[in-house]
Each structure stands twice: as C-alpha cells, then as structure tokens.
C-alpha cells in the first residue's frame, strides 16, 4: 500500500468534529428517550388499547416501517413547510428519529407484551392493583426485560441511521466528515476518523443500555 496518511488536519477541524459528535449524541439521546416512550404507548394501544385506535397505530407503524428513513426525513424537512409546518434541521432530525424509532420499538415492545401469559394480568387484578399498576409492574417491565436486547439493537441502528440527517444540513458527525473532506480532500482519513468515533459511540451506547437494563430489572432479578 502506497497511500500516505495525513492526519495533520485534525487540530484545525477538531471543533467541527466535536460539534458533530455533540449533535449526534443529542440526536440519539432525545431520539431514544422519546422514541421508546412513543413506542411503548403505541405498543400498549396495539396490544391492549381501545379497539378503534388500533388500526390508526397499525397504519402509522406500517407506514414508517415500510418507507426509507431518508424519505421520512425529507418529507418532514422539505415537504411539511408547504403545509406551514417549518422547523429547523435539528428539530426535523429529532422528529424523524422519534417517529422512526417509535414505530420499530412499538413492534418490539408489543411482541414482549403479547408474550405475557394471560394469568399474570389476572394475578395483578387479584392483588387489587389498578389497571395502570398492573400494566406497569406486571406487564411492561417483564416485557421490556424480555425484549431488551432487541430494543437495544434497534436504538443503536437508529443512532447509526442518524448519519442521514447530514442530508438536510444538520451538522452531525457525518456532516463533519463530509465537510472536512470537501475542504482538505483527505476523504480516507476523514471517514476513518468518523468511523472510529461512530464505533466508539455505538459501543458506549450498548454498554449504557446494558447498564440501564440491569438497573431497571434489578429488583425483579433479586426477587426471582
């Protein structure tokens, strides 16, 4: 290999990279939190909610899961302003990630809920728990524990998918890499650095999710 690496630009472009990392982290934190919250709500509706609402949520889930993320992003950022909903590229990126993760996590969480034996609901009711208490303690938490690895993977996938938001000029990590290589033409190095940072972020995120899982399900495990 005769390619000579040149990383001397890192100092000059460090602020751009750091800003990119910051925005990617912000996107994934907001996206994961609200996305999973939306997914939980939708899963409850699809599995146990009012009958008339189920097809509505079903349509939303199918629509998002069967269209490309990039198109959803363009629709929100370039399309919605025609209807009067104009938002900044960061708001659009956040919204697209929440809506996207919401649909995927809905199906994952619903699988967990539907795997809950009928008897557990009745057990909760017979202990005089309210329906909300029953749902939270008896249904949701055990369900989440069952599907936690799948949900963690989906969150990581959405984080990696966030690279697409550079297309609407949101200045995330991918934007930073594109920006740098358009200025110094060191494409190999710029993408190498961004790849390493993504890998690092993904590993940290997986560890965080594992930790969160351990915390969330600790009591249950102790009781078992």
């Amino acid at each position, binding site marked *: 290999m005769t390619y000579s690496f040149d990383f001397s630009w890192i100092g000059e472009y460090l602020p751009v990279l750091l800003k990119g990392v910051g925005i990617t982290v912000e996107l994934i934190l907001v996206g994961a939190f609200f996305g999973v919250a939306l997914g939980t709500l939708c899963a409850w509706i699809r599995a146990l909610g009012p009958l008339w609402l189920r097809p509505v949520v079903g349509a939303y889930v199918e629509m998002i899961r069967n269209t490309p993320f990039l198109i959803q992003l363009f629709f929100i*950022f*370039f399309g919605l302003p025609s209807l009067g909903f104009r938002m900044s590229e960061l708001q659009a990126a956040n919204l697209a990630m929440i809506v996207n993760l919401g649909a995927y996590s809905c199906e994952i969480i619903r699988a967990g809920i539907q795997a809950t034996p009928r008897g557990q609901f009745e057990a909760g009711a017979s202990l005089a728990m309210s329906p909300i208490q029953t749902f939270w303690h008896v249904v949701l938490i055990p369900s989440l524990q069952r599907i936690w690895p799948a949900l963690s993977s989906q969150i990581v996938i959405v984080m990696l998918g966030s690279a697409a938001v550079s297309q609407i000029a949101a200045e995330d990590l991918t934007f930073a890499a594109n920006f740098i290589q358009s200025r110094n033409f060191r494409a190999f190095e710029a993408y190498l650095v961004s790849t390493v940072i993504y890998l690092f972020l993904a590993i940290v995120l997986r560890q965080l999710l594992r930790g969160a899982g351990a915390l969330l399900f600790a009591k249950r495990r102790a009781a078992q």
Partner: protein
Amino acid sequence: MKRRQFIALAASSFALLAAGPALADALANIESTKTIRVAVPQDFPPFGSVGSDMKPVGYDVDMANLIGEKLGVKVELVPVTSANRIPYLQTNKVDLVISSLGKNPDREKVIDFTDAYAPFFNGVFGPDDVTAAKAEDLAGKSVGVTRGAVEDLELTKIAPATTDIKRYEDNNGTISAFLSGQVDLVATGNVVAAAILARNPPKKPEIKFLIKNSPCSIGLNKNEPALLEKVNTIIADARKSGELNAIAQKWLGADLPAEF
C-alpha cells in the same frame, strides 16, 4: 507537369501544411464553403442539451445560429464535451467553440477568446423582500449552499461570523431548502438560479451580489484576427439590438447584466 514546377508546388504546399492553421484564414474558409462549424455542448443545460426532437438546443446553440445567420452561412453543430471542446478547435475540426467556455490564462495560451456572450457567475440570490447588497449584510441571515462548491468556499471566507451557512449535499438540496423557506438566501450559480426560476416558484431568486464572475466567451484558434473581429462585431451588434438579451431571457430567465 515539368519536374521543377512539381517540386516548387510540392514545396509550397508542404510549407502551407507545416504552418498549419496559422496561415489559413478561417473566415475566408467559412465564406468560401458557406458553412461554419461550431462546437456546442450537449450535456450542459441550459447552454446546450438534446431537445425532444433529438436536435441540440440551448443558449450556445442559439448563439451559434445567430452568428451563422449574421455571416450568411450554414451552421454545422458539432457536439462536444467540456474535456474535448478545446482539442476539437486545435485540430481544426471546428471553427468556433461556443460551449460555455470561460476565459482563463491557461486557456489563453492555446486559443483566443472573443468578447463575452453569456453571463456566468456565482452569487447570492434571494427573494425580493430580503436585502443583501454585500457580504456584511448576510449577518444573522441563513444562506444555503452546496457543500464544497466554489460558492461554499468563497462564502465561508467573506461572510460575517453570525451568518448561518447551511451546507447541502447537492444543488437539489440547496434549491429545495430555498423553495421550502428553510434558508433566507442561496449562494449558487446563475444557471442554477435560472433552473429555479424555470419552475416559476412563489419565491423568486434574484441576484443580490456577485461572488465570482467568469462570463462565457467564444473560443477560436490563435492568429485569426479577421474571424475574431467579425465575431466580436456580431456580439456587440447583438447586444445593442437586443437579440442577445432575448437569448438570455429565453434560457436564463433574466435580462443580461449591464456588464458581464
């Protein structure tokens, strides 16, 4: 033929050949064959592209036809690419290159240029209600550009720190951002602005100020003073008579700038 005559003839024709186009008078040649051969682009709208009837159309094609008409000769269009347009001229396959060619010192070493016939510039464009006469006026405004383009590099240098420069992946992203109101202004080429205008949008991109100006000239071989002068006269007359402005209106959707 006597032997001495033959040698003299052969020698003189060899001398003519060796001197190549330097001695040939392209204008005389055009007038005697009643044909002018013009290199035009076929992949660079609105300057030159292939129309629905498979014939080349565009600003450059209209310009070629205008020159042919003024010279009273038939126009033979030769489609070229931006890479081979100058070699076509140098190897005498065409008399003129009307192919959105910008003047620069490297090119001027090998060919001659006429006066400019088409405006070609990068600038900041925006709707009527936004005022920005110079780079300083961009403070606090958002400007869309295509990442890595000349406009991006120049604007990054000259815009005040409070300017929000939004960099999109390609021209379509930049256009969409402007049309959907995600940015106040766009920095782009006049050709791209013309493409936006062609869609007749509610927000019309009007030129605010120039970033870089490199108008198109017609290229011809060196040492063709007669042809150069003739074409320059045709361009000057066409500017005066409004014929050139009509071509600009047709293909770029805007009047010719006062100077370009």
